[in-house]
């Protein structure tokens, strides 16, 4: 197992190199660079621009820039953001908090109800609740995030029950600690519901389908036939086997934790990673984009690895294949 994990981790390195090379190429290939906005500004002298070009290394061809950047990254220096004049990780760090708050809340929301809903629907197949859940699931899968977010904002603005965007209220600093918590929860409802509906639907349907598949298997019938109590048949046998794909999805969810949700963040004015990357991409803030993309990619790869490890932990058959 350990050898497998180590091998996967080593394999990650060329992939990350590829990701960084490709991203760097794509961003460098875009017409213009960050200094364009200075060039059209007549109050900045050409000498200054030249100096800045030299400072950021923008006067060299892009592959030289890439190699320089790579050398610095290996040393642990991810460079400065052009726009904020700060080390990129300082900026990412600040946004990371908001993104993590949102994605962790969403995960808690999804994982606390979706599997239960799926199990319930499978055990009461074709009941009213089952049909209602699958309607909700289809709507949840099909509704675009940004449309749901706008609908929620409309609802919030009309009723005044929820804030229309942002992460904290103006008087956040004056609130006692429980007030701060409540204020945060109040703000996070909209984004969590928006992101939650989509994720919820997928997991619920998967859980239902898997459990139904297992309940039809011979071993379940055998367990019933030998007089095992229904609770044990369902929860100790069928469910244990049905849960595997769900664990894989859990891993994928973890891989998306730091990714941020661009559209939802945009609509709700949530200061997360998604918006940071978009803004950085649009102003061609090269190093900031590179660092955030790399971070998301690392997360994606680690999440997939984690999914595999979790699966091996849950399923002895998979464990056997690994060793």
């Amino acid at each position, binding site marked *: 197992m350990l050898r497998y994990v180590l091998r996967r981790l080593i394999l990650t390195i*060329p*992939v*990350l190199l*590829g*990701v960084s090379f*490709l*991203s760097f190429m*794509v*961003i460098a*290939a*875009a*017409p213009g660079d960050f200094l364009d906005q200075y060039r059209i500004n007549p109050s900045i002298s050409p000498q200054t621009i030249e100096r800045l070009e030299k400072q950021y290394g923008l006067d060299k061809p892009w592959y030289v820039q890439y190699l320089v950047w790579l050398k610095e990254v290996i040393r642990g220096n991810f460079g400065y953001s052009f726009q904020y004049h700060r080390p990129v990780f300082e900026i990412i760090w600040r946004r990371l908090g908001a993104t993590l708050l949102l994605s962790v809340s969403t995960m808690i929301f999804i994982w606390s109800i979706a599997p239960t809903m799926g199990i319930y629907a499978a055990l009461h197949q074709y009941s009213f609740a089952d049909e209602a859940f699958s309607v909700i699931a*289809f*709507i949840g*899968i*099909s*509704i*675009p995030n*940004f*449309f749901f977010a*706008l*609908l929620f*904002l*409309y609802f919030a*603005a*009309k009723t005044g029950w929820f804030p*229309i*965007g942002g992460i904290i209220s103006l008087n956040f600093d004056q609130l006692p600690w429980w007030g701060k918590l409540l204020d945060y929860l109040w703000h996070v409802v909209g984004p969590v519901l928006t992101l939650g509906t989509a994720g919820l639907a997928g997991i619920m349907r998967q859980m239902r389908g898997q459990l139904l598949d297992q309940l039809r298997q011979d071993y379940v019938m055998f367990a019933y036939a030998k007089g095992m109590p229904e609770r044990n048949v369902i929860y100790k046998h069928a469910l244990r086997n049905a849960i595997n794909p769900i664990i894989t999805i859990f891993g994928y969810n973890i891989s*998306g934790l730091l*990714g941020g949700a*661009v*559209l939802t963040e*945009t*609509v709700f004015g949530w200061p997360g990673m*998604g918006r940071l*990357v*978009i803004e950085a*991409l*649009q102003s*061609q803030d090269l190093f900031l*984009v590179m660092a955030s*993309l790399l971070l*998301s*990619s690392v997360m*994606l*790869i680690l999440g997939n690895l984690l999914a595999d490890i979790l699966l091996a932990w849950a399923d002895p058959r998979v464990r056997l294949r690994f060793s």
Partner: protein
Amino acid sequence: MSEENEVKVKSEDLFEVEYMSRWQLTWRVLKRHRLGMVALWILIVLYLGAIFADFLSPYNPYRQSLTTRFAAPTKIRWFYGGKFVGPYVYPLIKEKDPVSFRTILREGSNLSKIEGVDREGRPFSVEIGKDGVESIVLMVRYRETACSSQGEVTYRKKTEELDIVPLSMVDELLGEGQYVRTYTSSSYVKALTSKYAWKVKKIGSPKTVDVVYELDSVIVSLKNGEVKEIPIASVTDYSLKRYHVKFFVKSWEYKFLWLIPSRIHLFGVDEPAKLYLFGSDSYGRDMFSRILFGSRISLSIGIFAILITFTIGLMLGGFSGYYGGWIDEIMMRITEILMSIPGFYLLIALRAIMPMDVPSHITYFLMVIILSFLGWPGMSRVIRGMVLSLKEREFVQAALAMGFPARRIIWRHIIPNVFTYVIVAATLSIPSYILGEAGLSFLGVGITEPSASWGLMLAQAQNITYLTNYPWLLIPGAFIFLTVLAFNLFGDALRDAMDPRSLGA
């Protein structure tokens, strides 16, 4: 008897199974899937709407009309005076909100006939079209009175010409000769009276403001240029001009099916009335027409992108799965790298490479390329996996042993087996392309104004004041939702129908 019947049915089944083609069988199963069929019909209607968009649009989707910005969806009426008269609408008039100074468009109405008694006691009757009467305009006296417990004071008097009378006041104004609107909200009252504070002071702070409209006279213009003014004492009868919804009307020019120049549209109303089925946007463009034109982009982009994705996916995936070796190795590493970059960022980064200020048809083309670039790695990997496992199957091995060339084996033996999966996967992944386009356009990096796409139209609703005041801006979102839902439902049904286990049933 019943047993005989059963046997008969079974042999019929056998006949169908033996003599119906694969597609006929699939269709037979599909037809039984109720939701799937509904979804299919919805998709057919949506695509027909896209094809005949210009014929179905009452207005040119690009023409701005700044006098009718943010008009609410036009109310279509069917009855007049309790009688069914067919669909008709009333024209819009602008009213300024006295506090926020926001312009609101309300329904108003022209008069087509008015009868009554003038101030000298003589009866009169005017009707448009009769005696050369061309238009009827009402002169209305208008005064604002502030009231408080200590009395009331009139602070503003005006005479106004109303060629279109707001529908809300028409009955009282013409029936009783007077229309009173009372404002009670304190902010309203303050805003209305503050300009005349020196007058209003006399009665302390006013609690309400009455705005009174009184009928003064009718101005009738005749065809020969003559204008007559009739001072009114009372009105005995009147009727409102109705703008009927007409079918196959002539208006703006387009090319039917991109070929035949035409001016005929399915429906429309005469000016100055407007028929905005879904309201109008911030430039006063008809949302209904724009949604139809937007569907051309939003609905086709997914199809084109999926076609390209699948061609690439089938070719590369099939190739690397069938031949394996170092080609396979390189290909899989490339797909791995592409799949390790979060999708939406890659989408935007790729868009950033492409020039921004190009004509919209080139933007469209670029978006198709970007979207299919994003989709091919996943597709290739799945197809590669399927080809890998198919290669080991007996029938392929047999074909190999018989010495068939690789091309024949790939085309005749492997592709048909992958194809079922491909069709289902295509249907189920079209929504992600539609959402990709909508998302990019929503962020302002996709299709750009003045072209229409559903995502771009929805971007207007990002402004929270627009969103709360003009909720019809959300309608394009409902169309995205409906389309994605229909594709998902239909794809689901298709998956069931294509499953060989369900064919005999």
